[in-house]
Every structure is written in structure tokens, then in C-alpha cells.
């Protein structure tokens, strides 16, 4: 795989799958405003995935038709995806979904900052554009957590949910295949691993917890290894596509 493409896929696949996970919450969030907020955020993330897949198609000098985008989003083999295990995780627990939303969007902010001055001008423009949406995603998660963490009932539920996600952080921040070449070509300014201390500080500020990520990163499986959740998720996403592979829906 082309290393720059591989680097872009690591971001695009994350955006795609976190958006996919958020779509599961429409109609079943704790209250109507949350139904709307979660699905709106999911829609934004799917839109960001489209933009990033378009960057890959740009590298290939291929027109970004719906079919070309969907081929990247749905038709690659499992070993070709570069998603993090955090976004592959299926959950029906709203506390876990909310904490994943906070964790993912906190890291996402730093990831976009790493490409805001990218030599790939399309990628740099996307980084500026998405921040207008991402700041609302973060405010949404933070506003809920501000209120819920102050509740003696909700706080332990949320902290337990956060603990259930910490094993996924090292994989999320482990070096991304292709990033050495991407750094050399100015596509990204630094390794994704540089986000670790920034996230540790955010976690300390938010949860009053000490989180040590750096040591775990070197022992983490890379993004070329799929988690146990991936195939179920892909089968669900492809159910209609697989029903009639010749069809245009």
C-alpha cells in the first residue's frame, strides 16, 4: 500500500467507523435532544470520512464519485483497513458511547492540528473546515460531562465507562503505518504518538485521573490488526450491499 494513502486511511477509516457507531444511537439516546445531537455528530463524522476518502482518490488522480468513495469505504479487505480498535467497538451502553465520543473527539482535535499545515493542500483545507464542526462536538461532550460528573449517581458510572475504554487508547495513538513517509513529505507535522501527553493532560483535567499512555503504545497492536468487533461491524454495514452486489441503491 502507498504509505501516504495508508496514513490517510488511518484517519478516514476512524472517521467513517465512529460516524457509523454514532448512527446506532438515533432514537435510543436518553432524551430527544440527545437523539438529535448524537445523530448530527455522526453525520458530521461520516461527512469527514467522505472528505478524507476524497483525498485518497485525489492521490490516485481518480474522480471522487459516490461509487469510488464507497469502494474505499466498503469494499477493501479487512486487512486493508487502518481503523483503531476504539471505533470498531460495538456498544449498547450509553455511558461508554458518551465517553468514547469525548475521548475520540479530544484526540481528533489534536490529529487535525497535526495536518492543518499539510503539504497536501486538500487535507490542510479540510482540517480548517472540520474544526468549525468539531468544536461543537467537543462542547457537546463536555457540557454533558460537566453536568453528569457532578452527580454522585452518574459519576461512578461514567468513570467505570472511561476505565473500560482506556485499554483502547494505546492502539489509537500507536504509530500509524505510513506516517514516517507522511512526515518526511510534510503531509503531517509529527507522529500521532505526540498526542499522548496532550491527552494525558486532558484526562487529568477532566477526570482527575492519572493516565500513562506512552509506555503502552510500544506494546500495542498496530492498526493493521483488526479487533474482534470488526467483522461483525463490516457485515452489518455491508448487509444490503452483499444482498445484491450488482445493484445500485
Amino acid at each position, binding site marked *: 500500500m502507498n504509505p501516504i494513502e495508508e496514513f490517510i486511511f488511518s484517519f478516514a477509516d476512524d472517521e*467513517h467507523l465512529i460516524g*457509523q457507531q454514532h*448512527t*446506532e444511537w*438515533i*432514537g*435510543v*439516546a*436518553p*432524551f*430527544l*435532544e*440527545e*437523539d*438529535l445531537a448524537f*445523530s*448530527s455528530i*455522526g*453525520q458530521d463524522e*461520516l*461527512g469527514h*470520512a*467522505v472528505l478524507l*476518502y476524497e483525498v485518497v482518490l485525489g492521490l490516485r488522480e481518480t474522480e471522487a464519485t*459516490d461509487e469510488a*468513495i*464507497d469502494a474505499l*469505504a*466498503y469494499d477493501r479487505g479487512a486487512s486493508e483497513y487502518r481503523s483503531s480498535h476504539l471505533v470498531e467497538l460495538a456498544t449498547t451502553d*450509553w455511558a461508554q458511547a458518551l465517553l468514547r465520543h469525548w475521548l475520540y473527539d479530544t484526540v481528533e482535535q489534536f490529529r487535525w492540528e497535526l495536518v492543518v499545515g499539510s503539504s497536501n493542500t486538500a487535507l490542510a483545507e479540510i482540517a480548517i473546515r472540520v474544526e468549525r464542526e468539531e468544536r461543537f462536538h467537543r*462542547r*457537546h461532550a*463536555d*457540557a*454533558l460531562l*460537566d*453536568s*453528569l*460528573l*457532578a*452527580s454522585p*449517581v*452518574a459519576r461512578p*458510572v461514567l468513570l467505570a465507562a472511561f476505565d473500560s475504554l482506556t485499554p483502547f487508547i494505546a492502539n489509537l495513538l500507536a504509530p500509524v503505518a505510513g506516517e514516517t513517509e507522511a512526515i518526511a513529505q510534510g503531509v503531517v507535522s509529527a507522529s500521532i504518538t505526540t498526542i499522548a501527553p496532550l491527552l494525558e493532560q486532558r484526562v487529568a483535567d477532566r477526570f482527575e485521573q492519572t493516565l500513562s499512555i506512552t509506555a503502552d503504545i510500544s506494546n500495542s497492536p498496530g492498526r493493521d490488526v483488526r479487533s474482534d468487533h470488526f467483522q461483525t461491524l463490516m457485515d*452489518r*454495514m455491508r*448487509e*444490503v*450491499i452483499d*444482498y*445484491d452486489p*450488482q*445493484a*445500485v*441503491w
Partner: protein
Amino acid sequence: MPSVMSRTWESLEEFEAFLDDGGIVEVDDAMPDEYRQAVFAFIEMHANSELMGGLTERDWIPKTPGLRHKMSVLAKTQDEIGHGHLLYMVAADMGVKTRTEMLEDLFAGRSRFHNVFHYQAKTWGDQVAIAFLVDAAALASQQAVFKNCSYGPYRRILKRIISEEGFHMRLGEDRMMRIAQGTEKQRALFQDSLDRWFWPALQLFGPDSKPNDVLLKWHIKSERNEVLRSRWVQKFVPMLHSYGFTIPAPDLRYDEEAKQWDVGPIDWEPLKATLAQGGPDSARRIGEALDNWQRTAWVRSALESAPESGPEKTGNPSPVPA
């Protein structure tokens, strides 16, 4: 702008004369209790239907084929939930029940929602049939209410809802056309959906309006059920025929004299079953909604009792609890 002054009427007759004269009732008016209850029940059922319709569609959203396609479908269902949100506010303002009471009645099976959402979307073809047939039926009903609705707050909300539902119907039509022009397998899938959804969609309009229907008398609805139903039949029967699909109505015939399609006798038993929460998917739909409502109760409870100092940490506005 609606008046903030509360108006009163000496008698029901005087109130009805006001309505017959094209009068618009506002939330602060001292409306007769019979009218308040009738309007409230109508809006509550509409709100419930928007929400339950969203739940019917959500089963297939994660499986939508295509990224941009998924964004469109997600936006549609988001609109439906958003309509529910607006309608619950309009209903709650009438002072009969709070939003929480309405939702708890819905999830306990104590209040009604449209017959079509007592059925399960079993295939992607069903998802398209809902957007194509059901949304069109719902839109026709809403347009008939909007045209001359005597309750101002509902009429104003309907204006927005109708404009969005028009997009939904076009999305459904576009998806149906792709299937119609698609593979044999696609067409067979949609024909199967049509076989199962045609009658429930038609039954959504309800049996013929009774002569003493208060919804008509008080200008909440402006057209009779049978008129709306026939209009839907005249549009969809030829359209579906033109795409080569079969209407699952053995007695269907074209009345040359009346120049219109007649679907034959309508069996109203399935509709009655849904009104008694006895539709094919009523138990699962209501049971899952109740289970979810209960499993997330801790969130609502925590937000309701959250100290005011909570949001200071980030300066964010406090989220609005249910």
C-alpha cells in the same frame, strides 16, 4: 404574531362560530376543554408517530448502502425525531400532559401512534417503501390539516414539518426509481415490500370520516379521510404500475365512469389491531422503546439534579434534560 391576550367564549356554540369564521386559537386562549383535549390527543399521536417512525427506520440506518446515501437517510430520520421534539413541545404547552408523561404513556403502551409503525421494516425494500408510500400518506394528511387548522401553534409547526416531509418523499421516490430500474433481485425485493406495505399505508388515512367527526367540525382537519385516501390511491396506483410493479389488491379496477382507481373493499381489522397495540410488531417496538427508556433513566435523573455549578468548568451551556 399571535396575541398574548387570553380570549374567552361564552359558550361552545360561540366558540364554534368563531372557528367557522376562520378564527385561529392560540395557546393562551380559554378554549373549551373538549377542543383542548381533541387537539392535544391529535398532536400527541402525531408526535408519537414521528418518534416511532424514527425507531422503525433506525433498524436499517447503519446498513444503508453508501456513505453519502447513509448521510441522507440519517438526516431524514433526524428530521422525524426533530418533528417529534417540536410536536411534543406544542402538545406540552397545552397543559394536558408534560413531555415526560407523554413519552412514558407511549412506552407503556397507553397512547397511540400511527398503524404503519406497528409493523417491522424487515428488509431494505421496506425502508424504501416507508419513505415512498408511508411518508407520502403522512404528508397528504398533514397538508390537509395545515390547510385550514384552527389551532395556531400546530399549524405553524406543520409548515416546517411539511416542507421537510416533501424532501423525504422525494428521497423515497428517488430510491424507489433506482430499484425500479435496477436488477431483478432489487425489483423482487421491492415488490415483496409493496405487498406488505401497500395496505397499511392506505389504512393510515383511517376509515371514512363520520358525519359528526369533531376534528372536521372544529377545523382541525379540513378534508375527509376517504378524500385523502382516494387522492393517494389515484397517485400511487398508476405510478407503481408505470414502474412495472403489481398492486396487491385483487379487486383493483379502474372506474371508467368516475375516472378513478378503486382498490375494492378495505379490511379495517389490521388497523383496529394496531389501535389496541396488537399490530405485528407492536410488542417488540414498544417493549424495546420502554427498555431503552428505563436503561437511560440514570442520565435524565442525574441531569435533573445536577448542581448549577456543573457547566462552569468549560463555560458550556447545560444540556437540556427531558
